[in-house]
């Protein structure tokens, strides 16, 4: 272990790190460097041919179904636990902007609900702006962006009632979902909705989503989907960054495991320094 001798590497005083998070600091810098390099490349127009996600076409198809049936689409941005900036909530904003614009153009009623007040403030702006850019400011109805209570199950109770009362045709469950997900999914199934959902965080609800939804986007698929829907070349470029970081981690895992099996523990020591 690097002992307490004052050791400087360039400008970094190695003493200033919390126990066990030294190498993590450099990994964070590396992670950001890879991301930023690819983002800049993408900004200058570099293109990657990325695998197309079928679930995105399902969303457009779902809105089409709602227009045919003349029934509303429901978009949820999740329950109360995560904050407005929680990484598992951030994918909801570009997706809602795309979906709201799509619904506005096709004159399809969109009901947006959320279980957290700050997020409600963001969603209201997004839906209003989508109506303006779609050229139909009067499509935006303040009553269709609803805040249903800062608790997971109080919120899902509202969603369950709403799905059946408003006869929702397509149920889009995104944002930060936890244990109450199964309630929303089965209430949607009871009222015959087409259900598309996404969870960005690793949690026990991934299986529930795979079980209850017709189309589901999990983990990095959802992060990539929200990049695709943002229609911003820089963000679409960052999907490639996701892959390159993955390749690096796969490399570290394989080399690390082999090296450790061979009895050399230095790589492990560096990692836990």
């Amino acid at each position: 272990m690097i002992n307490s001798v004052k050791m400087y590497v360039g400008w970094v005083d190695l003493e200033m790190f919390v126990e066990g998070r030294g190498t993590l600091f450099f990994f964070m810098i590396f992670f950001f460097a890879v991301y930023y390099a690819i983002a800049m490349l993408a900004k200058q127009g570099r293109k990657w041919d990325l695998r197309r996600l079928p679930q995105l076409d399902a969303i457009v198809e779902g809105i089409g179904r709602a227009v045919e049936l003349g029934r509303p689409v429901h978009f949820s941005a999740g329950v109360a636990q995560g904050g407005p900036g929680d990484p598992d909530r951030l994918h909801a904003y570009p997706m809602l902007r795309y979906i709201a614009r799509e619904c506005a153009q096709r004159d399809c009623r969109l009901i947006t609900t959320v279980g957290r007040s700050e997020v409600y403030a963001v969603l209201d702006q997004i839906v209003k702006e989508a109506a303006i850019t779609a050229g139909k400011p009067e499509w935006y109805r303040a009553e269709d962006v609803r805040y249903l209570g800062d608790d997971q199950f109080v919120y899902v109770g509202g969603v369950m009632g709403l799905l059946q009362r408003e006869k929702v045709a397509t149920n889009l469950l995104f944002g930060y979902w936890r244990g109450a997900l199964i309630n929303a999914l089965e209430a949607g199934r009871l009222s015959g909705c087409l259900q598309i959902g996404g969870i960005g965080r690793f949690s026990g609800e991934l299986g529930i989503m795979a079980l209850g939804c017709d189309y589901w986007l999990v983990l990095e698929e959802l992060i990539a989907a929200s990049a695709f829907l943002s229609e911003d070349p820089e963000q679409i470029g960052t999907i490639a960054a996701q892959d390159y970081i993955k390749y690096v981690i796969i490399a570290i895992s394989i080399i690390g495991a082999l090296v450790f099996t061979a009895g050399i523990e230095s790589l492990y020591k560096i990692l836990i320094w």
Partner: protein
Amino acid sequence: MEFTINWMMVTLSVLITVAVYSFLYRENMAFRLAEHVIIGSFTGHALVMAIKNINESAVARVSVGEIGYFIPIILGVLFFTRYIREYDWLQRYPLAVVIGISSAVAARSFIEGWIWKSLQVTISTPLNNLDHILILLAMLIAMSYFTFTIKHTGVVGSITRIGKIVILLVFGLTIPFDLISRLGSITSRLEWMIQAAPYVTAGATLLVLLWIVYDIATKGVTEELRT
């Protein structure tokens, strides 16, 4: 059976419980009332806690002298500018602060808790027996499913195909654990209802059953009931 306040409150909570359970048949006025009462009273509770929180952690600190806490109070008030037409962009400042805080605080715990810890465990398990090798393989194959820059065709396609199966296997192995505790919550809920107010429960359930029979009799077995 003395009609104390307590008894009335227990009866009301049993009635709300039966109303919520009536959703299992279909959405109806009883469920709608219960749903709106729950949402309304919870928001009232949340407002009480919010006011208490603002007093204790902001106003109290400022009065004691920590001037720094004046900033969140001003930012908090800026939230309400959204109702003034030409100044509604001011609400972006409190949102920016909150989004900056909650995104970074969560992200930094993910990079350590999920990526770094997993990497540390992966490279500290020696590949000396088949199980450890399979654990590493399962991990890498599951990760391969989430690649976008490679086309999932040919050899890569078969690997990602197995990757999806491993992922669904993990899903299949997480859900049943939850099922047992969920079934447990039904048991404890029905147990509470039966023990707290047996007559009210019996009466309310009978009422719901009669209403279901009446509903089916008048509307016939609709398509919705067949799903």
